[in-house]
């Protein structure tokens, strides 16, 4: 009974908001939008947690973070220990605290959420991880070496999560990264204002202190291959190469100047720091009017980036309605607050150019919603004769990414599905090649950072089992 009274009281305490930069200010800078909890707010929010004996939140987390345990430490004011508890299951908590869709995961399972608002688990994770980062104290005792070596291809969320768990199990881990910096989509894709790159690099430094070796500038499929790695003394290989192949719409005018894939637009801005041009030498260019095609998180990132690069009008062009937009609710709200204009039930059919080969306008068709389609969402149907033109200078295509074929095509005997994704055992994540594992977007198709991390962890467990049996 006492517990029930307690929980009734806690339901009544409202969830604590996290302070943000004002929309009109942040829309013109690349500083982080969300500012994080103060110590006082974090403690107050942590005290809302019921400390359930059978916590449902943990089952909603792809990496099974010890949620009640770390929140308890926050509530007690032991922030350092809270960070340590996070790290037991999660190699990149400061990243996850920022970019996980918690509302669909841990927070969606929180008991408080039934009658009121769930505990702000994500915000608390961010707070505790950042605290640990500031003190620089990380609790890690090197385990006894297993004598086994594992090569990981791709230093994105899947590869890094896999590396962290394998290092904890005592295996010698080498991560091979194609770009000049580790982090994958955390560095090239997600913008600075949502995930500061300094935070990503600090998390990666932590992995290095755990003994993980990271080699950049290594394009596997060219400088070496999966088979060569296995021949050269690695006992297992994990492929976590992500969704690094941009899709275009296949409409006229897509090769005009001013048209970017979201990958290119974000890579120029984030990885190459094009927003600091000319201090950084890689340019990125937006005109007055920018159209972003697509409505997922990558589309929102692109639109908000365009605004910060100086665009006056930024449109999200999407053929379905608001309810079907795949981006996180928080991202949609942030985008809208900043002044991104949603043009829904609208689909581009052609990009018109001028005589010099530059984008001039976007021709679109209006749509209406019909019966539910195979995805369960109401199918958008084009309205005949509804073509119209919008003047446009820049178009960013953000309709998704496919599997990059460099590794898969250079690995004979690796089973792929018809989309070019690697087929892996759902339990162990071992591929059709013994000792070769795969996980993340290269297996599932483009998804989220945390699902890729979950796959990396799962593969690490599969690899550990495999190596023990060798």
């Amino acid at each position, binding site marked *: 009974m006492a517990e029930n009274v307690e929980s009734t009281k806690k339901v009544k305490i409202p969830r604590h908001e996290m302070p943000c930069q004002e929309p009109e200010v942040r829309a013109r800078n690349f500083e982080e939008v969300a500012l994080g909890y103060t110590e006082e707010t974090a403690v107050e929010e942590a005290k809302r947690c019921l400390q359930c004996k059978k916590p449902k939140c943990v089952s909603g987390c792809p990496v099974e973070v010890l949620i009640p345990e770390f929140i308890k430490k926050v509530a007690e004011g032991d922030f350092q220990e809270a960070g340590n508890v996070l790290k037991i299951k999660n190699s990149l908590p400061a990243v996850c605290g920022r970019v996980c869709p918690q509302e669909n995961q841990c927070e969606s399972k929180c008991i408080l959420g039934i009658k009121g608002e769930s505990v702000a688990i994500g915000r608390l994770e961010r707070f505790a991880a950042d605290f640990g980062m500031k003190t620089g104290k990380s609790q890690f005792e090197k385990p006894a070496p297993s004598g086994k070596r594992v090569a990981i291809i791709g230093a994105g969320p899947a590869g890094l999560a896999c590396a962290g768990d394998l290092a904890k199990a005592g295996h010698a881990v080498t991560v091979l990264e194609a770009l000049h910096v580790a982090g994958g989509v955390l560095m090239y894709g997600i913008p600075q204002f949502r995930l500061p790159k300094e935070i990503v690099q600090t998390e990666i430094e932590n992995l290095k202190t755990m003994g993980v070796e990271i080699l950049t*500038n290594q*394009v596997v499929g060219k400088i070496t291959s999966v088979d060569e790695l296995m021949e050269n003394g690695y006992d297992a290989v994990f492929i976590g190469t992500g969704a*690094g192949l941009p899709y275009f719409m296949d409409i006229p005018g897509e*090769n005009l100047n001013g048209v970017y*894939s979201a990958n290119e637009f974000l890579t120029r801005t984030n990885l190459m720091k094009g927003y600091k041009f*000319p201090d950084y030498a890689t340019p990125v*260019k937006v005109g007055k009017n920018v159209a972003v095609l697509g409505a997922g998180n990558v589309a929102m990132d692109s639109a908000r980036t365009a605004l910060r690069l100086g665009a006056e009008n930024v449109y999200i062009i999407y053929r379905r309605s608001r309810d079907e937009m795949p981006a996180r609710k928080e991202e949609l709200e942030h985008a809208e607050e900043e002044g991104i204009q949603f043009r829904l039930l609208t689909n581009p059919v052609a990009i018109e150019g001028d005589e*010099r080969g530059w984008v001039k306008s976007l021709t679109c068709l209006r749509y209406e919603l019909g019966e539910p389609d195979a995805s369960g969402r109401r199918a958008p149907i084009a309205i005949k004769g509804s073509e119209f033109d919008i003047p446009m200078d820049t178009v960013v295509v953000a309709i998704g990414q496919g599997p990059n074929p460099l590794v898969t095509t250079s690995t004979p005997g690796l089973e792929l599905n018809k989309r070019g994704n690697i087929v892996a055992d759902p339990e162990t994540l071992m591929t059709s090649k013994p000792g070769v594992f795969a996980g993340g977007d290269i297996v599932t198709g483009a998804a989220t950072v945390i699902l890729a991390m979950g796959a990396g962890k799962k593969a690490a467990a599969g690899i550990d089992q495999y190596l023990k049996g060798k």
Partner: protein
Amino acid sequence: MYHVVKKRLLATGIALLDVNAPAVAAKVEPGQFVIVRVDEQSERIPLTVMDFDREKGTITIVVQDVGYSSAIITGMNEGDAFQDFVGPLGVESEIENYGTVVCIGGGLGIAPIHPIARALKDAGNHVISVLGARSADLLILEDEMAAASSEVVIATNDGSKGVKGFVTDGLAEVLAQGHQVKAIWAIGPMIMMKAVVDYTRSLGIKTIVSMNPIMVDGTGMCGACRISVGNETKFACVDGPEFDGHLVDFDLAMKRLAFYKDEENRAKARLECNHEGGHH
């Protein structure tokens, strides 16, 4: 770090650099390219390989001072290092014994044609190289090309050496001699490659070109380098850089090269400005 172990000035503003990159040198084949980055603030610059030495572990690149980044690279000296040096990238040339082949290199394009000519010669082809430059003093790698070819024909725009005119005039001279040319490789400025393929199209001689569009990652991830080949969009970084020249839309490719012209000028002006304020 990837150190410059040897530097040689080939002509005014054109530098040859041997860069220490053993893992790249172990794997690279003719026709492939590397991407270099001088330091933290630099662009990723794609450069087609001029030569490689698997034993010494070096890759040779040739760079002409035409913009902000290329000015910095041509200014590098022995002992200086690139922060990043990625490769080999792209698909290698299809080397086989065709019979008689022509390798055309225009301007800086002589550098990337060099390993292709040598490999074709090693494969048993009779290799006739046609080298073009604006004038004799800008003609590079003449000795290296002589060694890599069976015959060399030179064309200069001002007639200061060899045939007066363009590489197409040099090629016309080769064809006039009655050679049964089975295949042509042409590498140089886009406008030159376009002129060559326009010329060889009616003759029905297979002509391979090496495209050098704007790139960022060089691994197929961004799509900046897309070109149209036979009305299909291709990524030069992973599908190329070599393509059947008769199918390439050069007008589009040339327009796309101008994407960042304003920004390039801005960066170059700033570099010159800094120099004036600095050590000049």
